[in-house]
Each structure stands twice: as C-alpha cells, then as structure tokens.
C-alpha cells in the first residue's frame, strides 16, 4: 500500500477541470468557499461555466435544479454541514423529489475538520441524504476514488451526493485498481476470515491500519470499502456475514442513520445471525481539536478499531 498523501479535495477540483473539457454542459456552483472546496480550479479554467452564488446556499441548490432542467450537469459544492442540513428542504423538493440531475459534492465532512469545532463537523449528512428517495450517496476513501466517483457522478443521471473530508489522506488506490468500480458495488480491499470491517470515506485508511495491528494478534480482518452508502451493496454484506460471521462498520459519521445503520438494516431483514458493531460518532456533538486528538478521544483511530474488533470477537 502506498502511503503517498493526497488531498481528495484537490482530486475533486482537478477532475472537474478534466470533465469540463469533456462535457461542455458541466457547470459548477459554489457558495463563497471555492478556495476550500477547490472548485476554484474549475472557475479559473472555465469562468463562464462557474457560478459564484455567495453565502446563500438555499438559492444555490434550487438554482442548480433550474440549471439541470435546462440540460446542464451542475456540480454544487460547499462544506458538508451547509450542503445538506442547511438546505435539506431545497434538496428534498428541487433535487430528490424532482429527480433532478444535480450533483452535490461536499467537502469538510466528519469530525476531521478539526479545530473549527462541532458547528462545522458534519456527522449527519449521510443519514440526511440516505433517507431521500432517488438520492445516491457516496463517501470516497482517497483521492483516486474521489476522482472515479466524480466521473461516475458526471456520467450517470440522477440526484447524487458525495462527501470527502478536509485533510490530506493516504492513497489507497492506483487509477487502474478502480477501472471497473461501479456505483453500489463495494470493494474488497483486503481479504480476511475472522471479521469483515465495512468502512467508508476517511475511515477506510484507519481500518487498514487497524488490520495490520490485528494481524499481529492473529486476527485476519476483511476490509470492505463501501464507497456507495446508497444504494448499498446488499449482496456483499450478506456474503461477509456468512463468510466471516462478524461485521464491524466504521464511518466518520453518527452511528445513527449512516453506513452502520444501512448494514444493520440488511442484516436484520435477511435474518442473518452475525456479531455486529457500529463504530462512529456515538450520538454526540464533538468539539474543537486536532483531528488526531479528536479521533483518539472519540475512539475512531486504529487503536480503538483494534480494541472494538477484539471485544466484538470475544463476545
């Protein structure tokens, strides 16, 4: 595994520029955060197709739906907290209900936003977007996958939401690894027999680190990168439950409503008996702090993933 650090936000900006060349109807909207979301790269290259909408997110979402109704492929970006909760009704009516071809790409998702504090740490976005009919929901795990997902979003019709974190992240994939990646089909990153750890977004790296540590204790963990939260890969979850008999989910999100809930719903409805635990933010607002300190305090780092896994397997 390569440990080269690349920021997924940069990957987003660069991919937009590439796609802009290919799709003359691709347009980008931002709400005064283009330097942070990296849509500024697109703005510089294609100023006539970039719309600065000011700090007015509600209008931005509905306007994107209007653009989509004229055959545009609008990518809308801001921080995850403003891209979902703040504009839930606009997304519900103008994007999801209307089945509009609007692509919401949020950055600064999760608690790794760090020092800005809980006001900016979005831990409910996957839940909010997942509950909307018609909506596809992604949480890419590294820069390479971000690029792939942005391409899939541009080239697949329908309302879509994706979120990445603020921080640089180690590269997990090379471009050719994801050549055949499909929406709604999770990736088995590492094989293993004792437990399946199903993770999404930033947590995939942490569970990969935890896997190395678990191996030393003689535990072989299968690592699933569930980049699409909705539609969830039901077949893969069933397969993991049957083959490993234990599932741990890991997400930089509330344990309520996100990836863990989606997996739990499948396990319960399919009547699969399987040891199961959700790792995430435990129904609490976090606080300001360095990302590493937050991950330690709120038990999301590799050390805690190891602990949680061992405890689950001892049950």
């Amino acid at each position, binding site marked *: 595994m390569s440990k080269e650090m690349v920021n997924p936000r940069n990957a987003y900006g660069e991919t937009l520029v590439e796609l802009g060349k290919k799709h003359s109807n691709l347009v980008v909207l931002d709400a005064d955060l283009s330097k942070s979301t990296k849509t500024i790269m697109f703005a510089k290259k294609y100023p006539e197709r970039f719309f600065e909408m000011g700090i007015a997110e*509600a*209008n931005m979402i*509905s306007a994107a739906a209007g653009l989509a109704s004229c055959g545009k492929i609008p990518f809308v970006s801001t921080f995850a907290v403003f891209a979902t909760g703040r504009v839930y009704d606009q997304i519900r009516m103008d994007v999801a209900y*209307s089945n509009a071809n609007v692509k919401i790409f949020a950055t600064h998702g999760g608690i790794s936003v760090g020092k800005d504090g809980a006001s900016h740490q979005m831990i409910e976005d996957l839940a909010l977007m997942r509950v909307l009919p018609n909506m596809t929901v992604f949480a890419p795990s590294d820069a390479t996958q971000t690029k792939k997902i942005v391409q899939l979003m541009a080239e697949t019709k329908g309302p879509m939401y994706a979120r990445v974190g603020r921080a640089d992240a180690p590269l997990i994939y090379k471009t050719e690894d994801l050549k055949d990646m499909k929406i709604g089909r999770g990736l088995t990153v590492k094989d293993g027999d004792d437990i399946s750890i199903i993770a999404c977004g930033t947590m995939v790296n942490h569970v990969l680190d935890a896997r190395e540590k678990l191996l030393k204790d003689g535990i072989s963990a299968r690592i699933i990168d569930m980049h699409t939260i909705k539609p969830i890969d039901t077949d893969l979850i069933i397969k993991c439950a049957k083959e490993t008999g234990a599932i741990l989910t890991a997400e930089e999100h509330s344990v309520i409503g996100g990836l863990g809930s989606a997996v739990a719903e499948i396990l319960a409805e399919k009547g699969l008996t399987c040891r199961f635990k959700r790792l995430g933010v435990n129904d609490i607002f976090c606080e300001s702090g360095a990302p590493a300190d937050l991950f330690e305090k709120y038990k999301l780092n590799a050390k805690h993933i190891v602990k949680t896994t061992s405890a689950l397997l001892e049950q």
Partner: protein
Amino acid sequence: MGNRADFYTNYFYIKKHSGVCFHLLINGWGGTLKPYDEEVIKKLDIIAVKIRRHVIEMLYRAKSGHPGGSLSAVDAIVALYFHHMNDNPKKPEDPDRDRFILSKGHAAPTLYAVLAECGYFDVKELKRLREINSILQGHPVSFHIPGVEASTGSLGHGLSFANGIALAGKADKKKYNVYVMLGDGETDEGQIWEAAAVASHYRLDNLTALLDRNFLQIDGNTEDVLRLESVYDRWSSFGWHVREIDGHDIDQILDALQMADDHKNQPTMIILNTVKGKGVSFMENNVDFHGVPPNEMEYKLAMSEFDMLLRKLEEAS
C-alpha cells in the same frame, strides 16, 4: 373581516382610476403606450373566467385545495400562456421555450387548468385533481405533469429555480425568457431574498417575477403577519426593475410583460395588485378561503356568478 385588505384594495382602486400613481410619476410610463387589440383582451378575459370556473370545479370535486390564491393568480397566468409566452404544448421539452414557474405551488389548480386548456394534457384530467393515481398532485410536480417546469409547494424555491434557468439561458445565449409567480406571503421566506440578490447580481434580464400581491396569507393580512411594505422599495433596492399594476387588468399585464422583456441589465418584478378569491363575490378578500374548498351551496353560487359574467363578456364581444 378583511377590513385591512379592503382598505388596500380600495387604495389601489383609487390609484388606478384617479390616474395618479406615485411610482408612475417617479419612473415614467415606459410602456408601449399602444393599447392592445380589444378583441385580444376580450378573448383573454373570457378565458380567465373559464379558468376560474375550472378551478372552483376542481376544488369542489377534490374537497380540498386553495381557492383564494388560485383565483387571484388567474389573469396573469392566462396572459402568459394564452398570449405572451413562446411555448408549444406539443413540444414541452423544446430547449428554446419560454418557461413559467409557479413558485406559490398551492395555486396549482390554476396552472393545471391553464396547461390543460392550452393542450399540454387532456382537460378530463382536471377532474382527478388530488386523487389517487392521478397525474395532478396537490402541488405541482415537474417530472410527470406535462408543462410543469418545477416542483413547488414548499414556499420560497421558485425564484431560485428560475435563476438557474435564466443563468443557463445566458450561458447558452438563448433568447428564451423565464417567468416566475410568487405569492406575497411567500416573500416572507429568506430564500426569496437570496434569489433576489443573485438575479440582480447576474443582471438576469431574461427573468421576470410576478408578485401576486393580494395582501392576505393564512394567518391574516400580510402587513399584520410580517410587514412587507414597501414592496416596491424592497425589490427596487435589491437592484430590480419594478412595475406595479392592476393584476386583474389583462391590458396592463400584457403591457408590463412586454416592457419586462424589453428591459435590459436588470430582472423585472411586476407587482400585481390582486384580490384574493377574485371572481367569486363571497371569496374575495376573504382569508377563510385560503385553503378551504367551496361546499355545495358555495359551488353552485360561484358557478352562477361565472355564468353571468361569461354571458356579459360574450354579449359585449
């Protein structure tokens, strides 16, 4: 009840008929000064009565819906679809079409009746408003009602949606215009002012908003619920070109629409001074008919009023 609304109605009546209009004096007429063909006006007036008839029939049949704001909106929507707009019911997806967004989605019956009479779908569908398995949902839905551009019903979205259409039109150098009707109560919503700022910033002169200024919202008079005046100054200060007209006078509506299309570098707001419940005597300026359909007696009474009015209009033509 409705005394305050009566006051404003009278105020605008006086303003209209005395020939003294404050904003007119300040801003000049600026219109075409060419009166529209009387036959055209008469034709549209007759269509407006027929649309009102549909609306009341639909609401009576559905036993739910919003008569007051549907009736006040009729004349402007009729003027748009039956005369002013460049649209073709046979080509509802034409990329060059003019668009109309009903941001005050609760006036859906009016939009549906107009679309059906224009030929976007069968008039028979109107009988199935709000019924199970009907295409005609309680509020407009874009993806399965032919001719409906945007899904509305949650207030405050339509102007933003229209911004998107106008931005696309500018980007593609299209000649189409986009028209959006807002309720006056609807402009309580903060999103409206986000959209007002953005439309002005981007100089969206291909965008025209029409404000159904009927002075009533569910909890009462707009000025008691959450003061809106001066509506003219608000929009003007946001950088909009503003016109204020009688929203039931087809001649004035057509003239204002043409002027809005001709106006460059600014979006236009046409304040339509209207009467909630217009066309049915006992519904006029009566906020109780905001969201309550007519009962059988009221239905029959309304129908007889429409019949009388139609006869009068048809005799005159």
